[in-house]
């Protein structure tokens, strides 16, 4: 069983006419670090949101850890996401009125992942251990993204979906950021699917996939 099995997915926004995404086949094995690339506007984010169970494709099936997301109720999908998936946005990952610690612990309140005792280790590894009580609005962009990583990894979810989280960082920081992410993901055997249009960091991943190629098969 693959960790992610996507087959014959088609997704159209309620307001759109043509499908933004048409994907015959996509598989990810456990422990892989996938670099999913493509130019802006090709549906990368939409695809991530489908895998996260936030959007529901009109056609096809998405299985994560063997669970068919389409078979779950909306509440069931939310619950599944809380329990198994960490999500990192491009920017503005944090709730502005909560401090660093509260932001990191937030996912523990929505799912059943235990992870409180991981917090110290995570923040120490990410170098944000002394920022826990700080309001997130006082952090630099790089610090904010590391807090987002800690939040995505707390409770050791099986899958991390990352939506260009490095695009706001400079080159130096990008590599360090990815290295930290992979080290910590490796510790908890978490699979990473990372979308970006910036192919300069591609070499750090175990596999690179072009979204355009994936979609082209049917065309």
């Amino acid at each position, binding site marked *: 069983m693959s960790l992610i099995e996507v087959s014959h997915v088609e997704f159209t926004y309620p307001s759109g006419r043509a499908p933004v995404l048409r994907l015959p086949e996509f598989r990810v094995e456990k422990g892989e670090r996938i670099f999913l690339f493509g130019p802006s506007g090709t549906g990368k984010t939409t695809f991530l949101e489908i895998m996260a169970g936030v959007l529901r494709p009109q056609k096809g099936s998405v299985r994560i850890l063997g669970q068919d997301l389409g078979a779950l109720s*909306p509440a069931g999908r939310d619950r599944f996401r809380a*329990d198994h998936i960490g999500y990192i946005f491009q920017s503005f*990952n944090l709730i502005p009125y909560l401090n660093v610690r509260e932001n990191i612990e937030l996912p523990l309140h929505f799912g059943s992942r235990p992870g409180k005792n991981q917090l110290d280790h995570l923040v120490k590894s990410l170098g944000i251990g002394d920022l826990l009580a700080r309001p997130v609005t006082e952090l630099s962009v790089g610090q904010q993204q590391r807090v987002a990583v800690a939040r995505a990894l707390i409770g050791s979810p099986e899958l991390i979906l990352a939506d260009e989280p490095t695009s706001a960082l400079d080159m130096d920081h990008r590599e360090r950021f990815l290295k930290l992410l992979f080290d910590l993901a490796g510790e908890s055997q978490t699979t990473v699917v990372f979308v970006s249009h910036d192919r300069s960091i591609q070499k750090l991943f175990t596999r690179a996939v072009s979204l355009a190629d994936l979609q082209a098969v049917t065309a």
Partner: protein
Amino acid sequence: MIFLRLAWKSLRNRLLATSLTALSIALSVALLLSVERTRRAAEEGFMSAISRTDLIVGGRTGPLQLILYTVFNLGNATHNISWESYQDWAKNPMVEWTIPYSLGDSYKGYRVVATNGDFFTHYRFRGDRAVEFAEGVKPNGLWDVVLGAEVARRLSHRVGDDIVLSHGATKGESFQDHRDKPFKITGFLRPTGTPIDRSVYITLPGMEALHIDWQDGAAPTAAKRVAADSLKVENLKIHTITAFFLRTKSRIETLRLQREINTYKEEPLLAIIPGATLQELWHSLGYAERVLRLISALVVVVGFAAMLIALTTTLNERRREMAILRSLGAGGGRMVGLLVFESGLLTLAGIAGGTALSLGAFAALGPWLENEFGFYLVGPALTGIDLLVLTGIFLGGLLIGLVPAVRAQRQALKDGLSVRT
């Protein structure tokens, strides 16, 4: 728990917007409660302008008219009662006491009431409150006059001052003054919060003496004028009075006595039970009450509109926050719950603030209202009805919160985690 913390911190984060919204609700709640309390106090004050009096008796007229000119200083009597009829009823074995009233003159727009010592002994208002003197003594001599609290305060007289009464009770018309027969002030009454404050009291012989040389309602010519110092109390016979208040020895007798007075053979009389007539009068003024209520209800609606606007505008800024919570696995129901919970907290803060504001304002301004307007805040500060209305407002606030919350939720289902603007 996380719910409470999220809602609390999010509200605190937008302190200005939050407190303005809560303030707008607080103001409408305060206004609603204040209007309601004022209305209650007005009704209470109105209904208890006279107490302990079982019947008011006057010449044959309408019941409303009778209570208006005797208790509320409004309008005029069309018929008087002869002194003999009055004596007849005053001596009736069922009667405990009576207070005669003779009306028709005024002092600078304030009604002159000619009565006797029974008024100061027996008259009661607001339960068992008697008429008391702030200064001086009751009128005894022919030319003695006592001023009600408001008259005294407005016109700033002192005990011992001479004043000239005017003929006729209508305010603002050209009066004929009783210039040849001035009265001397012997005292001032304490404020009562009833029309007593706006009255002037003289003796029945005083009223008689004032008009002794008048004929058929016309002032005497210079030749026929009777000099004030030639009149003596002992020589004056009282011919008529305008009305009288009556207390029965036993309340059970009231209806029987009323019937007997109303069918009195000697003279057409009307006896009314003040409580019943006051009730009727208040109901006929009911539209004013309804308008007041309508206004306060509208104010609450405006408060809610302000809240809806505030919630909707902040919601746009908060879509990012909603997307983050969703990515963490917070479900649609929880998001709606969070937003509704926040508006619940806002409404609750508004209700608490508004209630405190209203209670505080009345506590602070109460004495001033009593002094300045004779307006007494009788009755409870908050009634069960008030609490019911406040509960209704709270539920209304939740409902208002539901509108933008559901909208945001629908938007999120369509757009996923990306915030499209």
